[in-house]
């Protein structure tokens, strides 16, 4: 086994999740800088495609066939199969995404192996034979670095903290048959429902246009959607907008929603209360349109337009349209 492991996450259609390409890039960079070995592992009913994609980022990938992954939630069985690959007394570090599947996987592996977890990494370096992980805590008021106290650990990595970059040379894929019965109690996927109009995952979006209470209603969100489309971005929302039923919970950004780190966060009618701020303050550029010059978002946005979003929004659409010709 290698020193660093990238746990590849697989989407419902069997392809590699985008977050795993970023995690692989981060782990490979860390391995190169520290002289460690790095490898990937993909557990799926048919892991070939995802493993081959992960191998464009890493020198070596194990593809574990687990037929049960077709009809059971992925994380728990992946955790069981990955734990079974480890030699006794192994000294290794694992990296996975900090989204729902990655968190479930990390939690199951941590409890199975007794390994610690450093969660929501924004970056990692290497010191004293282990990773040193950078994280943001207390709603972004503090940036911390932490390490593992022993020779093992699991790191979950936030989306958009590194840009995925394939390795110069593609790696090898080794096929591994899953051995033995699964011990976890069965959970069955009775149905996978695709909801019409489900937007792309906002955690991975490069541009997010988000609306808050100031958007006023579902009709107002049509303007938010149009601007998002013009900028090639995804639509986000505050809890107030979600609670009002204007937009689904999956689009919510903040303490009890998603944490995002896009290149651009355009906030429309969002005051920027702390519960929302914790979800978006690490955006590279924050632009806000708000009628209230005293709204908290005016304190941390890069550019704030004091004005009515129903006047500035259409003008912005026209300007973007004129630009794209």
């Amino acid at each position, binding site marked *: 086994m290698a020193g660093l492991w990238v746990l590849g996450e697989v989407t419902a259609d069997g392809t590699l999740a985008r977050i795993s390409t970023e995690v692989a890039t981060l782990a490979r960079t860390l391995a190169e800088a520290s002289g460690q070995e790095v490898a990937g592992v993909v557990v799926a009913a048919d892991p070939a495609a995802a493993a081959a994609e992960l191998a464009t980022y890493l020198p070596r990938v194990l593809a574990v066939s687990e037929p049960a992954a077709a009809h059971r939630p992925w994380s728990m069985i992946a*955790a069981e199969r990955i734990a079974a690959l480890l030699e006794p007394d192994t000294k290794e570090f694992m990296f996975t995404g900090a989204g729902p599947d990655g968190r479930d996987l990390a939690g199951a592996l941590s*409890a199975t192996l007794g390994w610690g*977890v450093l969660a929501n990494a924004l970056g990692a370096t290497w010191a004293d034979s282990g990773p040193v992980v950078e994280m943001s805590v207390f709603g972004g008021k503090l940036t911390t670095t932490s390490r593992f106290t022993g020779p093992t*650990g699991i790191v979950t990595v936030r989306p958009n903290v590194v840009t995925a970059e394939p390795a110069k040379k593609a790696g090898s894929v080794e096929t591994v048959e899953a051995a033995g019965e699964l011990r*976890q109690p069965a959970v069955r*996927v*009775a149905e*996978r429902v695709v909801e019409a109009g489900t937007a792309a995952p906002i955690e991975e979006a490069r541009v997010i246009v988000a609306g808050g209470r100031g958007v006023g209603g579902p009709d107002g969100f049509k303007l938010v959607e149009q601007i998002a489309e013009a900028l090639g971005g995804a639509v986000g929302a505050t809890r107030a907008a979600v609670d009002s039923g204007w937009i689904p919970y999956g689009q919510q950004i903040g*303490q009890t929603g998603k944490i995002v780190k896009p290149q651009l966060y355009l906030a429309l009618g969002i005051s920027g209360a702390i519960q929302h701020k914790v979800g978006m303050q690490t955006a590279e550029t924050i632009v806000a349109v708000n009628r209230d010059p005293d709204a908290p978002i005016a304190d941390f946005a890069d550019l704030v337009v004091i004005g009515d979003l129903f006047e500035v929004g259409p*003008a912005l659409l026209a300007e973007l349209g004129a630009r794209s010709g």
Partner: protein
Amino acid sequence: MHIVVLVKPVPDTASSGERLRPDGRLDRAAVPAVVNANDEYALEAALKLVAAHGGEITIVSMAPAAATDTMRKALAMGATRGVLVTDEALEGADHVTTVKVLAAALSGLEYDLVLAGADSSDGQGGVVGAGVAVLTGLPYLSYASKIEPDPEAHQVRVRRISPTGYDVLEAALPALVVCTQALGEPRYPSLKGIMAARSKEIVTKSLKDLGIEAGSVGGAVATTALVGSEAPPPRAATRVVREAPDAAAREIVAFLAERRII
């Protein structure tokens, strides 16, 4: 139905007084504690399930002894009783300890469902629910937007939020379900609820009560350690635009072009 809800008292994120102690641990005395927001959704889901199916709700917390005040807020919402695992040896506990202790606390209880929040506002790891499921051997159903138990058939159906919609999951009871805000707004405690909570039972348990050796958990065996911390670099000064809509829109576009976003 008997439902256990895992509830974490956390520093109030709105207080903006959170800080680390010199030893790198969270200074829990510096800020008022509240019920973790994501756990309130789990509790609200439990209250609705008990209203529909009958039964009782036990909240389980691992926290310093003073956490009974915060637990009373959860009891005021309508939970039946509380179990607080508290022990000086738990100070500095990491995820691994938390999972071990909560799993041990559950082994002494009877339940059909264990509900947990998706993550805590202080730790933010989002790994405790899955870990507790592994150690207790419970079926694990996470990121629920709908929970439909059938106590007679000992089955539960859960909608798990997926990137493209949702998966319908089925498992046998007892099971552990991780809850999300999509289950509905937590209720405010009524005056009657607040009064009633004062006399509700909170059982305190030590590590010894749970059969856990003090040296095997807590800060002494923490798997992670803080190396350093610093305030993030301040964002550049905000550019404020007060022009008319058309001019303001041109400023936004120029600003985005300047930053090579468009």
